[in-house]
């Protein structure tokens, strides 16, 4: 398992007039080497959720376990004492005590996270990552990350070259300024900057926003290739075709809670008209056929060919 959320709550600006609860009792596991899509409306807590995975945000309550190390709301030992007190406190409800016991269990089994190590293991590609480029040359920009995490200059440059090669940027670009590249190229350089740190978990926050369909397809193929090389991918997206075509698991967020965790095919098979998602056209079409009384098993169908075969089979039996 790569990531585990246990009873995580998060409140923005606590004890201020802007106090806002964004996550409620999140319990969630994300497998190693999975490709997990996170979907839900704007404001459902998707971005808040992913920022917990590399400790950009700390839980207000609860723990996040990333690669067998724990992210806690306050210092590890202090949080342990707080939980032990909660269990003994007569004013707390049985439910609160049970949660504290669960969390204590986790704390007794794992060690606290180390910020630098965590940040190199979990790479986040934010929306419009091209705005984060800053160095004079492409090669310098991409090698900045590994340098920052303690690699020698030579190691960093080798890692940068490898990462650039992965995203399809060749050596003629190395000495160019990142600012004179096209939008799509900039984005690939920015992604190489994350890959150069060799993360084991890669988080992508709407990485294809603003790209045309072909560039978007190429970008998704790149991430799928990275996933196949053994990196855990967590993708925040609104594009249901991406969910369908690339992900192995889907997390549906709603109002700061995990509404369900499932597989894309199950999601599209029984979550018809729901407003969190707009079905890919093929799935909408199949749901309409089912509504007409066609006994189609939608969760068994991947594409138009499967549909044609399934219908042929059904008609043959009739």
């Amino acid at each position, binding site marked *: 398992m790569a990531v585990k959320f246990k009873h995580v709550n998060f409140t923005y600006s606590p004890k201020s007039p802007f106090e806002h609860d964004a996550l409620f009792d999140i319990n969630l596991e994300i497998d190693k080497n999975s490709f997990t899509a996170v979907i839900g409306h704007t404001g459902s807590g998707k971005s808040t959720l992913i920022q917990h995975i590399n400790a950009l945000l700390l839980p207000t309550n609860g723990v996040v376990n990333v690669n067998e190390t724990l992210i806690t709301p306050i210092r590890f030992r202090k949080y342990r004492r707080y939980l032990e007190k909660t269990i003994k406190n007569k004013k707390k409800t049985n439910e609160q005590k049970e949660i504290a016991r669960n969390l204590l269990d986790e704390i007794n089994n794992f060690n606290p996270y180390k910020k630098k190590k965590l940040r190199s293991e979990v790479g986040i590609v934010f929306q419009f990552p091209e705005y984060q480029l800053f160095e004079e040359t492409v090669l310098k920009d991409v090698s900045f990350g590994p340098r920052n995490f303690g690699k020698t200059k030579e190691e960093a440059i080798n890692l940068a070259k490898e990462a650039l090669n992965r995203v399809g940027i060749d050596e003629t670009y190395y000495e160019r300024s990142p600012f004179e590249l096209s939008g799509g190229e900039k984005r690939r350089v920015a992604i190489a900057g994350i890959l150069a740190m060799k993360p084991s978990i890669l988080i992508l926050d709407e990485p294809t926003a603003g790209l045309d369909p072909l*560039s978007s397809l190429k970008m998704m193929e790149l991430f799928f290739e990275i996933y196949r090389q053994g990196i855990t991918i967590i993708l925040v997206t609104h594009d249901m075709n991406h969910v369908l075509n690339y992900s192995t698991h889907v997390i549906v967020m709603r109002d700061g809670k995990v509404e369900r965790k499932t597989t894309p095919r199950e999601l599209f098979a029984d979550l018809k008209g729901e407003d969190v998602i707009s079905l890919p056209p093929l799935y909408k079409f199949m749901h309409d056929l089912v509504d*007409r009384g066609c006994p189609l098993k939608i969760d068994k169908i991947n594409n138009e*060919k499967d549909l*044609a075969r399934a219908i042929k089979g059904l008609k043959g039996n009739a």
Partner: protein
Amino acid sequence: MKNVAISLKNVSYSYDKKNDVIKNVSLDIEKGKFISVIGHNGSGKSTFAKLIMGLLEPKEGEIKIFDLPLDGEHISQIRPYLGIVFQNPDNQFIGATVRDDIAFGLENQCYPQNKMDPLIEEYASRVGMSELLDKEPGNLSGGQKQRVAIAGVLAMHPKIIVFDEATAMLDPQGKDDINKLIELMRKKNEELTLITITHNVEETQTSDEVIVFNEGEIYMRGKPEDVFLKADKLRSIRLDTPLLYRVKEAFLSVGIKLKSKSIDELKEEIWP
């Protein structure tokens, strides 16, 4: 030539004077037709749109709108014929309320004030926005904003309306709203020539003709059913066909020939 709304003769255009993004394109678009233009970024479709709207001037060749050359001399004569709906609904608002916004174009044309209100109300109702006339545009959804923009364009009585990726930034509901509105506009006024520039092949199926741009040239042109039956030719430039054609193709590969011309017919045909 009376029935030709837009005519291009050997038109080329380049932004940098070296590489032509539109290469020697000639075509006629008949009056009253609904044309969809598809292609990838860099295919030339957006440049084509800018050329016919008079926002760019061809490097070579000639463009005529209703037989008038689209040049500096005639542009002010041609402009009232042309309505444009742009991609980003937020960049098109001028008025403080929906009503003011629709009025803006009319005021510009010195339309008499006392006749303006009924006209605004008529066009607002055509786009389904009657109840929101006194709302601020900022509080509307993306689809509603585009509908207001369309009402403003319609109120000017253009003969040609170009939708330049007008649905690209909208959610599925908003896209659907606009496409339904386009259908309605066609029924209401058969003389109106409509051109949509789009990424989304699903939107092109109800059009009279589809024009596919690739590398600055017209790659394919024809009725939707003729263009989309050549799936391999489209896929070779990495465009896909709409769902209707993909389903028909898949059924054909298992030996079932389907005749339907729309998704609704298709459901009926597959499972009566």
